[in-house]
């Protein structure tokens, strides 16, 4: 589980970068972060009523994405931790087909970024496969730099966009 303590204590982890997730938790958690007086996690806040086995459950309680360094497809230690949890969850709910979307930041050229996103998705899939999730269950798709989640003009935004996102559905097209 992503706890808010981790979010504040380790500003450069994948969990921190996944700021958009905070929207799901509400402004309360953000305020808690600022004052460092924190409830333990989303469950304690009563905000996590996601149906077990759902995409929401996966996103909130496991973490649906991992992040990459510039022009890199290597999985960081933090990414591997997230993917270990993803694998456990996916093995617990074996009926969900999985799509991994690979993305790049805007600081590259279009065609290369399509390939780079594909590499990131493939690296993520390969790791999950090693952790026991059947490869045949996983589809990958790259969106290159076409689908940023963060749109500001600095490194913090670009780093949120260099990501691989695990979805329990068909790709969004």
């Amino acid at each position, binding site marked *: 589980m992503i706890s808010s303590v981790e979010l504040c204590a380790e500003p450069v982890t994948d969990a921190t970068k996944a700021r958009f997730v905070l929207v799901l938790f509400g402004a309360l958690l953000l305020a808690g972060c600022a004052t460092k007086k924190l409830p333990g996690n989303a469950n304690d806040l009563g905000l996590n009523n996601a149906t077990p086995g759902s995409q929401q459950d996966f996103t909130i309680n496991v973490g649906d994405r991992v992040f990459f360094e510039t*022009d890199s497809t290597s999985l960081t230690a933090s990414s591997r931790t997230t993917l270990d949890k993803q694998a456990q969850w996916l093995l617990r709910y074996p009926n969900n087909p999985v799509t991994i979307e690979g993305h790049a930041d805007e600081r590259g*050229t279009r*065609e*290369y970024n*399509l390939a780079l996103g594909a*590499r990131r998705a493939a690296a993520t899939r390969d790791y999950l496969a090693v952790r026991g999730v059947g490869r045949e269950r996983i589809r990958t798709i790259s*969106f*290159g730099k076409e689908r940023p989640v963060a*749109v500001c*003009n600095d490194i913090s935004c670009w780093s949120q966009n260099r990501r691989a996102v695990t979805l329990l559905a068909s790709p969004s097209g």
Partner: protein
Amino acid sequence: MPIIRKIMMCIAFSLILAVTSMINFAMAVVEIDITKGNIEPLPIAIADFLGSGKQRGIADDIGRVISSNLKNSGIFKPIDKDAFIQKIKDSNIVPRFEDWRVINAQALVTGRIVRENDGRLKVEYRLWDVFGADEMASQQFFTTPRNWRRIAHIISDAIYKRLTGEKGYFDSRIVYVDETGPKNKRVKRLAIMDQDGANRKILTRGSDLVLTPRFSPSRQEITYMSFEGGQPRVYLLQIETGQREIVGNFPGMTFSPRFSPDGQKVIMSLQIDGNANIYTMDLRSRKTTRLTNTAAIDTGPSYSPDGNRIVFESDRGGRQQLYVMSANGTNTQRISFGNGRYSTPVWSPRGDLVAFTKQSGGKFLIGVMRPDGSKERILTEGFHNEGPTWAPNGRVLMFFRETRGEDGGPRLFSIDLTGYHERLVPTESYASDPAWSPLLD
């Protein structure tokens, strides 16, 4: 009536602009050498085209489009009409050259429009060498009134060719990606317009992400990439009918398509796992051929105009660099060795240069180099410039420039091969991935 007289190239290439008054010599006396860089634009007078009744408006429009084309090329400087001394009343009579010399017009364009009995328009023009006191070119065209704009472009090309010795590029179109909506929810649609931004037409609905459209050299056809159905693949689109088809049946994402110079093949990348390799598909036989086989990202392929070689980008050496190989995939040689990353290469239609995007020092630059990698020159640089495309005469490049931040987005720009005359190409909304058509027939 002579069509365009043969261009005489015998003088003037050591001079930036050769203007003499050798009236009795059968050689061009007003010529521009456009290979030299920042030339002084040639003052040219474009007299009002003559036309009466309903033709009056079209006559004005044609004059305006010719003037705008010539001005935008950066090579010509149309003279303000208020300065004209002679008012041309009959385009078949030799103008009073002394009146045009006084205002320093090096060349003069006159013309008229007449409506034929069958409803078509006859459009005539004459190009005069003012200081040589001679007619340099004249031509007439018959067309439907709706087609006036193309006639204006064709006349512009004829003037450009007569005065520079190079083919023009005004009678051509641009296919590009129209972008609307916020940055994190961009809607991208294929769009097509004349090279000057007129006659814009949207070709796709925007429900599917579309990227990197490229013109066929021989048909009214585009190849592009679409994410339709959640399957990113290369497509063909017939511009006139809207008919589409998927190119090939590949077991993965296909992207970065371009036509071969004969229009018979599409060359593209196929992504399998972490690697992208380059393939061609013959559009007649549907046969696919693999050209590269590396554990790397090989993409951005572009043929030389003779079809014998292919330039592409690859990160096989660690990061994006440009490589040239034979059309069968052999004899691969790296050509880019400067500081930075090189990508999106595109071979000039003249064959002499390769244009590219370069990332260096946190900036994105547009440059050119010879196909052997020598003589690299940067034409423009900034926060983000990407994806050059060549005008059909190989003298002008178009590319997109993206501005920073949340409200930022791409716009199209053109620039001379010499690095001068950079200008915004007007589009209604944000625009990216331009591709220049060949000259229309």
